[in-house]
């Protein structure tokens, strides 16, 4: 039974790898072109990746920081020793 699951999973992975989108040819590149041609003027930053992460999708980064904050607060609550 285990090898049936293995074969099905491997076939699925091979099919997915075969059907992968060709690299560097997006279906719709309007947003990529917009960011490449406007990121330096709109955010004054050379690094387009950082300008996407902190400016165009800054709200998402705020959520990421909130996830980090929640995880650390949970770990501190569980593990911190309080002197009596």
């Amino acid at each position, binding site marked *: 039974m285990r090898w049936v699951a293995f074969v099905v999973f491997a076939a699925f992975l091979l099919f997915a790898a075969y059907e992968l989108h060709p690299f560097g040819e997006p279906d719709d590149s309007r947003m990529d072109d917009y960011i490449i041609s406007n990121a330096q003027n709109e955010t*004054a930053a050379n690094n387009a990746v950082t300008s996407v992460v*902190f400016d165009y999708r800054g709200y998402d980064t705020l959520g990421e920081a*909130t996830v980090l904050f929640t995880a650390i607060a949970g770990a501190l609550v569980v593990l911190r020793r309080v002197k009596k």
Partner: protein
Amino acid sequence: MTPVVRTIAALIFPFIIIFSFYVIMHGHLTPGGGFQGGAIGASAIVMLIVAYGARNVKKKAKEESLSIFESIGGLVFVIVGIIGFVAASSFLYNFLVGEPLFGTIPPFGSNPGILNSGGILPILNIAVGMKVIGGLASVVLVMALAGGDEE
């Protein structure tokens, strides 16, 4: 740990911290940014914990002050976002573009980069870097303190 490890750790520590600040400050020019540089800086503090023991590190940096450091980073992030909401159109709007501080617009295309550019991105990178350094270091410190009593 042995004196050899302690000496080498104390020698390397400032260089790792400087590299962490470099990665954070150049987040808008080169690969890297707040999260990556913060992880480098936190790993420097973890190295001190491994070499010197959690109790000796706790004498210099308590986990309370580290988590206050982290919370200041989060507050700076949110306050910068709200300033963008008030001063310009939307939350986290890049209101510093064109201003003298961090506002120099670089020429189009690839160029060496200007440190005084990026709008609010350097401020947000510093805030996230403070958050990651304080958070990861305080978690590892608390785990090492809770782990046991050995040196």
